């Protein structure tokens, strides 16, 4: 009974969010960026870039991390969480492109960087990498669709190109994940010293991997609940350990860099920036300390809570770079308009909904992996489909 009630509550929330998002979309189309955002000449990038794009891309980093773990490093035991991670990444990138359509002044020209080149531009590099990597993700994801519909010949081709694809995916990701940080290297005169550092590309890259792992834990936990499955606790605990080490590395870099540049005292000034800086660091430090403990890693609730903290810490850092840290230098303060928030929430909600749908209808979980040639042959010989997906329970 309570379960039914809770689900329908979420469905209500989802409906309302989508409704608000639709109305906000109408305002964006009818009244342009001027009518739908609080952006202005002094503050041209807001929530849609800061959250939807910068955070969206970072949170999708689990895809390339796990693809590399399984297919390059040959750690096959991580296969069960690799598929969902690739699905998350693919959805994540599609939603980032959607968000860009909202943010660009001329969304009809989103393809321009593909034919109008400026190789000195970081944005140009990001545009190319994101386009190529989204294609790679689609191809990495394709085998699941092919398996679902029993299309064995194209599946055989896909297997042959899988490894080069994964390698290309890792390289493309390394490039554009760090380039999102490079974007801000051009504003030393605007970005607050607590965030401006030549290390931004490295910090963005490392924090993206951390956030990608945290997202993988987060979504495994949720889908385990939604589909009444067993949590792959030993795998997630192993990820969590890597995550703790990554966080330690990230924090060491971050703090040593601040100390070297003499920016640490700025954190003590009684200002908004200092508070949000403190929040950002705490939300990384606390889960790091927790995840170094075995009891925490093996306790689903504590593991989940730590992953959520990492995600929030990551988001706080990116919003600090793109918004908090840019306000003083731009001479204005910025708070997103309701329409900006509504569109963002709708995009996040869509992400959850599509993930849930795909997870229910494609062989994403339940030991899903790309079948081998031999298994195909056996399946072809024996009637019955080995890849019927687990029915989605509890809707």
């Amino acid at each position: 009974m309570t379960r039914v009630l809770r689900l329908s509550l979420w469905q209500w929330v989802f409906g309302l969010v989508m409704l608000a998002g639709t109305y906000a979309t109408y305002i964006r189309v009818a009244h342009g960026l001027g009518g739908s955002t609080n952006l202005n000449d002094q503050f041209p990038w807001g929530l849609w870039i800061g959250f939807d794009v910068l955070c969206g891309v970072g949170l999708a980093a689990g895809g390339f991390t796990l693809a590399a773990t399984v297919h390059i490093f040959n750690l096959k035991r991580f296969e069960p969480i690799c598929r969902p991670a690739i699905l998350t990444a693919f959805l994540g990138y599609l939603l980032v492109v959607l968000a860009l359509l909202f943010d660009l002044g001329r969304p009809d020209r989103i393809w321009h960087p593909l034919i109008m080149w400026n190789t000195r531009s970081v944005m140009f590099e990001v545009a190319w990498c994101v386009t190529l990597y989204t294609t790679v993700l689609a191809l990495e994801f394709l085998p699941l669709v092919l398996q679902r519909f029993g299309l064995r010949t194209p599946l055989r081709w896909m297997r042959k190109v899988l490894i080069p694809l994964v390698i290309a995916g890792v390289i493309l990701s390394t490039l554009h994940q760090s380039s999102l940080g490079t974007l801000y290297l051009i504003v030393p005169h605007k970005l607050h010293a607590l965030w401006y550092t030549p290390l931004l590309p490295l910090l963005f890259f490392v924090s993206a991997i951390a956030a990608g792992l945290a997202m993988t834990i987060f979504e495994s936990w949720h889908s385990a609940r939604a589909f009444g499955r067993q949590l792959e606790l030993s795998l997630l605990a192993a990820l969590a350990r890597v995550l703790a080490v990554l966080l330690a590395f990230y924090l060491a870099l971050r703090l040593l860099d601040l100390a070297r540049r003499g920016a640490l005292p700025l954190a003590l000034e009684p200002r908004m920036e200092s508070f949000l800086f403190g929040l950002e660091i705490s939300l990384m430090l606390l889960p790091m300390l927790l995840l170094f403990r075995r009891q925490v890693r093996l306790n689903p609730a504590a593991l989940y809570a730590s992953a959520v903290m990492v995600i929030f810490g990551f988001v706080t850092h990116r919003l600090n770079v793109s918004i908090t840290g840019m306000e003083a230098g731009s001479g204005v303060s910025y708070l997103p308009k309701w329409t900006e928030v509504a569109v963002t929430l709708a995009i996040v909600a869509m992400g959850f909904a599509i993930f849930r749908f795909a997870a229910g209808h494609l062989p994403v979980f339940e030991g899903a992996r790309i079948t081998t040639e031999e298994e195909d042959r056996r399946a072809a010989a024996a009637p019955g489909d080995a890849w019927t997906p687990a029915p989605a329970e509890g809707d």
Partner: protein
Amino acid sequence: MARAILFDSTLCVGCRACEEACAGRWKLPYGEDIAAEERISERKLTTVVTHGERYLRRLCMHCLDPTCTSVCPVGALEKTGLGPVVYHEARCMGCRYCMLACPFQVPSYTWSARLPKISKCDMCADRQIEGQPTACSDACPTGATITGEREELIGEARRRMAAKPSEYHSRIYGLREAGGTSVLMLAAVPFEELGMNGRIPEEPLPQLTWRVLAHVPDVVALGTVLLGGVYWITHRRDEVAAAESPKGGRR
């Protein structure tokens, strides 16, 4: 030959003739209300800013190595050989990175337009080609704004400072800021007191991102080799194991 503008704040009387001439050239409405907005926007591409008794003009500085040109993903902003930095509207996709990155906070956006675009001073590029001074230089009654060759204008600025050292702050703004600009400014007081950003480095800003971007080929080459190597090693173990297993055959 690179053209440039020299603005001498000590000669400016705040009559705003430059603003009006600029509005006329861009066919923008101009009146007292717009004159009172002392900020560059889609409504005025240049403005006079009042600081007590002193006036300073704001306009695109037409940097020698422009940040806006380097950041634009589609090459919509171009530094012409003659000096002006011009905008090609047909390429622009409205990402607004140029606005974020410009060290002088110059480019504006037509936020409410159905097909929005960047608006920015173009140093009267068409007039420059014909060898004419900019519309603002033409309109200036006191000679506070003049157009000329950059080298000559730097010489002129130095002469003015040498002739009346007590009337000038000892710096030509734009000589080195952001790697140098095609708009040069003189004033009686430090430029920070007139609202200019004091944190702009002397190195051209595009260098900051280029230093990282230049490594893209390295990442691609090194990444391919490394990942390929790791793949070979980790999968070799499997092959060996398979070959050595009883069913595998070799022994």
